[in-house]
């Protein structure tokens, strides 16, 4: 167990401690990690303040901004964003003081440090509900903030994660890899394991602070997934809430970088929670709050033929490395399916490949970073194959494919459990 961050001087600065002590105990704490969000931050802050005043007038609330060193004046905009009534048309008057605390965070740069500061603030203020809001502000309105706060503040649920109404051909990395894997392994029907927003109880926030994830190198990008899987592993009551699909900013990271980070995140969670997931069986379907947006937006178009070509080339290059990771029979089938223009990686072969990589991590067949890089072209091959196979297919048929993939991950989970537990 790590040291309690509230007692750790590097987590909360003296100035932040002073501000939080002035705030005292709160019922709801909204955390707002920021990094150069000047374009959207004012609207987000106003939405939070309207939500506080209009929907939770009797609760003690505070907004904590944890800024990672923005250079576009984000903290100044938050400081100057007025909480005055003029901004809150048709809202009731606040019965309590609206607190706003700005905290440039200390320590290693990254979202995990910002979140750690927010969690430590929640513990210090003994917040009953903690909500972390995406500062990029896509679809953030006062109603949406309220929707996120209310179920946890009422005590209906202990952890609330966003859920998006996606087009079945959208977000292939999520639908082909992360969602079915997390669903099968953790036995939880979580749609979006990688979302950045969430709401949880103050008790869970304190629990998370005591874990040793914060010191891990991969925590920088693994923290979102870890929080969700930790909630599942702690057997919290987990729910989902409909949110509008965000449009990730183009050019932020390359596909290979994202795959690398996602694989490391999954490895971090699998290692941390093995005592839970090795025994988890029946899938728990989650209750969903909020209003279903109904129609899913059309997915972005991308050149999957080019991706398939890249994958073919890369897999043929790293063939000797894959041979050391995959079992001999599986290796031959994967090479047949990925380097020839014949049959694609089908569901079963894809799932067995994913599980083989997980077992390879467990048994140290190569460094995790290397395994993540080796996995990238295999995912690219699968993603391109999925897009090619579903081109022009009716949406229900594509959705059936996604459900079938989830079933295959679930059906073959015993092979992962056996390989993971195997000491040889």
């Amino acid at each position, binding site marked *: 167990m790590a040291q309690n961050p509230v007692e750790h001087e590097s987590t909360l600065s003296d100035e932040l401690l002073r501000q939080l002590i002035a705030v005292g105990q709160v019922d709801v704490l909204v955390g707002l990690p920021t990094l150069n969000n000047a374009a959207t931050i004012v609207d987000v802050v106003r939405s939070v303040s309207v939500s506080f005043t209009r929907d939770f007038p009797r609760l003690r609330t505070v907004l904590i901004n944890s800024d990672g060193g923005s250079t576009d004046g984000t903290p100044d905009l938050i400081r100057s964003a007025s909480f005055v009534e003029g901004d809150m048309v048709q809202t009731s008057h606040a019965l309590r003081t609206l607190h706003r605390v700005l905290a440039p965070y200390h320590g290693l740069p990254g979202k995990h440090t910002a979140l750690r500061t927010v969690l430590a603030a929640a513990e210090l203020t003994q917040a009953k509900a903690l909500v972390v809001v995406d500062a990029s502000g896509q679809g953030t309105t006062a109603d949406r903030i309220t929707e996120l706060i209310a179920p946890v503040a009422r005590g209906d649920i202990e952890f609330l994660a966003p859920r998006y109404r996606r087009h079945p051909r959208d977000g292939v990395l*999520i639908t082909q890899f992360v969602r079915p894997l997390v669903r099968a392994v953790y036995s939880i029907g979580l749609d979006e394991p990688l979302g950045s927003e969430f709401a949880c109880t103050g008790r869970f926030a304190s629990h998370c602070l005591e874990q040793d994830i914060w010191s891990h190198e991969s925590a920088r990008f693994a923290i979102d997934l870890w929080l969700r899987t930790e909630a599942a592993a702690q057997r919290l009551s987990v729910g989902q809430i409909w949110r509008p699909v965000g449009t990730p900013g183009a050019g932020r990271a390359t596909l290979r970088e*994202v*795959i690398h980070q996602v694989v490391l995140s999954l490895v971090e969670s699998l290692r941390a929670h093995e005592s839970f997931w090795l025994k988890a069986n029946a899938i728990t379907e989650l209750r969903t709050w909020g209003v279903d947006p109904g129609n899913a937006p059309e997915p972005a178009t991308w050149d999957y033929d080019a991706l398939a070509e890249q994958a073919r080339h*890369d897999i043929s290059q790293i063939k000797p490395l894959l041979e050391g990771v995959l079992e001999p029979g599986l290796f031959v089938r994967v090479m047949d399916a990925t380097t020839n223009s014949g049959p694609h990686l089908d569901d079963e072969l894809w799932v067995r490949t994913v599980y083989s990589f997980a077992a390879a991590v467990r048994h140290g067949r*190569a*460094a995790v970073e290397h395994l993540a*890089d080796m996995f990238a072209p295999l995912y690219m091959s699968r993603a391109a194959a999925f897009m090619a196979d579903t081109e022009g297919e009716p949406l229900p048929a594509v959705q059936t494919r996604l459900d079938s993939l989830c079933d295959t991950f679930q059906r073959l989970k015993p092979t992962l459990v056996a390989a993971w537990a195997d000491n040889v």
Partner: protein
Amino acid sequence: MIQEIADALVQSWKNFAEAFVLFVPRLVAATIIFGGGFLVALLVRRVTQRALAWVNFDRLSLRSGASEMLRTADMPPAEVLIAKILFWIVWLGFIVSAVDTLQFGPFQGLVQEFFRLVPRFLVAMLVLSMGFLVGNFLWRATLLASVNAGLPGARLLSSALRVLVIAIGVVMALEQLGLATSVILTAFAITFGALMLGLAIAFGLGGQAAAKILLEEQFRAKKKRDTDAAPHL
């Protein structure tokens, strides 16, 4: 005259008998050391092999790429090889000790020489192992980095790096053993220098235009390969 011959024979017989009386116990002792050493060496081999299996040494060997190289060279698995090497070191120690017990003039000081060599041999083995370990790690890292960056000849580049690192390891190990040090070092320096100089001349003078085209194409290919992750999330 006859008496003198008889005296010589008697003396000779006495000398032989004395030498024989002195030699037989040494021979018996040497035989015991030889046989006992064999049994001890066998025991060491078995214990080592089991201990290495117990600590999952095969995983380390697999991860470092040593298993693959040993398989390619038609050699036994790493834990068996290490156990065999230890068997021979221990048994050779006993053999040398047995020979020393016989007190043959030409073999005097053999034990001291042997025990002077053993640490150097072990260090050489360690250096060689490190060479394989580092060479394979760099091979894997370079291959993945080159493939990710879309470099042409990724496998050639990474394999060349592996061969170079292992070659450096071999040279260092041989130097540690003190085997023809100057010849090995000179040969290595000449080969390595000639190779690098040849590449520099070929790429820098002979292939300037080709290098320019290669780098430009590389830059374009890199941009094309850097697929945006947004549609996948």
